[in-house]
């Protein structure tokens, strides 16, 4: 049996935590190997070790049967290992070509040979069906395209082993389909792939084998064909996980959020939201479905006050809030799980406990007369962290930055739900979460609804929108395409509407 990569008995510690404890993973040539585990289980860390970003305390890595010491990503590159990181490593104001050639630049004399590189990229792009524009700037292209740029980077360097860390978390369903196709193409060309994902469906769809880790330890490796989604989930979490969201029929009452003919400009200074009107009632979840970049961000930012409204009005519980300060909106009962947890959701250099009171530090009992009350803050934070099973090295005193992506997300959700807002705006609430956590979060969102609160759910994952929502509003190009009842629709219909078809089918 020939393995391209073998990671044997890897151990990697971080302050206060053993991220990888005696983990073994072997990658066969030409296979797609999934790596599965809960948030914070140590997947990214393990791949970081393979890619030379971390040095393991113990263990051995073999590439093509030979023991190697991967002291930095350069070495990994030279060994034919490429990686697409959970957070893309692209320079925003560089072009696609510049990003791709960075580090292995073709030259004409002493001048960069951009043209020939661009040609080669266009060729590769065609060959693997990646469809990237070599001259576009990264900051101007969609997340999906950025990811394809990352893939292109590996291909450009002729990497043989490709690592994907949660590649689908940021993609639309269509983009995910495309990615799968691309991966299969890659395998056909003889490449080998390791993919980290929390989506069991995807594992079933593309992976050949799957290694499961839990809390830093190997649980085992299985052939995907012989495993079911349920069995994988159980291996990972250690208990049975239900995928079906259990919920009662909703009983919406008063209108909580009313949006009236709202128009909002986007970053490019043109209208990103064009005259949208919506209502969300107590006791219901309104899902907004749409392909990324069709006005969702602008819509949410307008409601939460992060962005100025061009025209139209926003009402909360019958009171106009179109132009009031953010803090007042929070006080009046808006909770917000933001799209970008690192940019908006957390002060990464603060402790977790500070982050847990980010919106309420100035309220009793966390402060009085402008003075912080640390014990009560800590108590409050510990409670949230416990409830939402946020795992970190040093508990409430951990620096937010040191948490795994999933745990950061859970912490934010916990914080927002703890505010018990009348209107909860949840943007991609389960992005990057493991199935166990997703189950839990979904349960909590429904609970929130059942308490008679309103939930506005924005997700790029059609599955999630379909399962959680009571009603679904579909947006395309900044406009409302239509609204449907979740119980009366299906993936196909919504998918079509997301593409801009079917305005007439309003509810």
């Amino acid at each position: 049996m020939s393995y391209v990569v073998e990671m044997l008995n890897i151990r990697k510690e971080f302050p206060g935590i053993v991220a990888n404890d005696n983990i073994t993973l072997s990658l066969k040539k030409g296979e797609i190997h999934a790596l599965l585990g809960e948030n914070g289980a140590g997947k990214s860390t393990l791949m970081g070790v393979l890619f030379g970003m971390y040095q393991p305390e113990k263990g051995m890595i073999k590439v093509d049967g030979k023991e190697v010491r991967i002291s930095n990503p350069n070495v990994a590159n030279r060994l034919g290992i490429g990686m697409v990181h959970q957070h893309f490593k692209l320079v925003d104001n560089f072009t696609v070509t510049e990003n791709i050639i960075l580090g292995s630049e073709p030259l004409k004399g002493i001048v960069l040979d951009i043209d020939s590189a661009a040609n080669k990229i266009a060729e590769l792009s065609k060959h693997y069906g990646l469809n990237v524009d070599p001259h576009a700037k990264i900051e101007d292209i969609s997340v999906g395209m950025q990811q394809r740029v990352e893939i292109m980077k590996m291909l450009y360097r002729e990497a043989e082993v490709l690592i994907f860390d949660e590649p689908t978390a940021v993609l639309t369903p269509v983009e995910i389909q495309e990615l799968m196709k691309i991966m299969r193409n890659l395998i056909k060309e003889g490449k080998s792939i390791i993919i980290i994902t929390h989506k069991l469906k995807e594992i079933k769809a593309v992976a050949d084998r799957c290694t499961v880790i839990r809390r830093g330890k190997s649980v085992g490796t299985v052939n995907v064909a012989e495993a079911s989604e349920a069995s994988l989930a159980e291996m990972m979490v250690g208990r049975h996980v239900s995928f079906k969201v259990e919920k009662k029929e909703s009983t919406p009452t008063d209108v909580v959020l009313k949006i009236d003919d709202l128009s909002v400009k986007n970053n490019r200074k043109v209208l990103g939201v064009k005259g949208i009107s919506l209502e969300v009632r107590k006791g219901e979840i309104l899902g907004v479905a749409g392909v990324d970049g069709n006005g969702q961000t602008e819509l949410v930012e307008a409601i939460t006050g992060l962005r100025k409204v061009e025209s139209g009005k926003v009402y909360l519980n019958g009171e106009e809030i179109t132009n009031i300060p953010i803090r007042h909106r929070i006080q009046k009962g808006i909770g917000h799980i933001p799209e970008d947890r690192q940019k908006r959701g957390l002060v990464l250099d603060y402790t977790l406990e500070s982050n847990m009171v980010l919106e309420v530090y100035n309220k009793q009992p966390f402060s009085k007369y402008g003075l912080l009350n640390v014990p009560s803050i800590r108590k409050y934070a510990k409670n949230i962290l416990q409830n939402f099973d946020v795992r970190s090295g040093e508990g409430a005193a951990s620096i937010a930055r040191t948490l795994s992506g999933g745990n950061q997300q859970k912490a934010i959700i916990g914080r927002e739900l703890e505010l018990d807002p009348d209107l909860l705006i949840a943007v991609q609430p389960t992005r990057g979460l493991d199935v166990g956590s997703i189950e839990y979060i979904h349960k909590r969102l429904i609970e929130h609804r059942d308490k008679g609160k309103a939930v506005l759910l924005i997700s790029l994952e059609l599955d999630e929108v379909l399962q959680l929502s009571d009603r679904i509003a579909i947006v395309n190009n900044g406009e409302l395409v239509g609204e449907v009842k979740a119980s009366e629709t299906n993936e196909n219909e919504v998918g079509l509407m997301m593409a801009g078809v079917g305005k007439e089918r309003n509810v």
Partner: protein
Amino acid sequence: MWTIIEQIFPYAIVFTIPLLITALGGLFSERSGIVNIGLEGLMIFGAFAGSLTIYYLQGVWANQTLVLWTGLIMAMVAGVLFSLLHAFASINLSANQIISGTAINLIATALTVFLARNITGSGNIRITSGFSPTDIPVLSSIPIIGDLLFTKTYPTTWFILIVLVISGFVLYKTKFGLRLRSCGEYPQAAEAAGVNVRRVRYSGVLISGAFSGLGGALIIVTYAGEFTGSVSGLGFLALASLIFGQWRPLGILAATFFFGFASTIANVSQVIPELAIFPPILLKIFPYIVTLIALVVFSKSSQAPKAAGETFDSGKR
């Protein structure tokens, strides 16, 4: 008025050049991701090394021009050596770049005077003669620009302008430039692409050392003629020009020239009756106020290298 401008122009340019080259040095450093507020100190080291070299060689060598150029080279060497301190602290030790830069400034003012006194017996080092300005044959007789640009020019001016052009080329057209810029924008990306971030940042800082050292020495060989242990805040002004110039070579040229021109006007205003109608305080603060206004106007599109000032540590998420 025109004659006044004609007369002032060459002096404004001479004053601009040391600022320009220093700011250009700062550009390389910041584009590689290292903020260098030690420019002032590096200029002082350059001025010191340059004048010391020239002071000793002027008695020994017949060829005065060669002496001056040797002085400039030694200034660059000194700048490089002392910028190593900054590079080591901020790159190898992930030190706070501001502290380390501040330390450079402090060390420079103290150490150079100490050394000057120990070596020459005086804290001030005077050179016998610097470069001489010349009118460039043919070109200086072109109307208008001949008077402005090709009259009373120093060879060093043209040299620095060539360096400016080369810098622009290196930054935007070469492999080194691409890597340098990537390290200043997103070093994690550069690292993942196999770029040796440390090495690139070292180059950036060392170039800033060489250029600022050169800038300091240019002051001596053009308009000052004497090392006194200070460059009167020009290093900080260069830093301001770098930001004002939006981290771009041509922007820096414009910003430094603006400072050069405005402060020359302010300096000579006392002698020029036509300018005496303005209260002197206005003329003196004019360059600074205009800079503030200009920054407001250009502020919408800040081009600061995103990672400048951040320590880079591969482990950081």
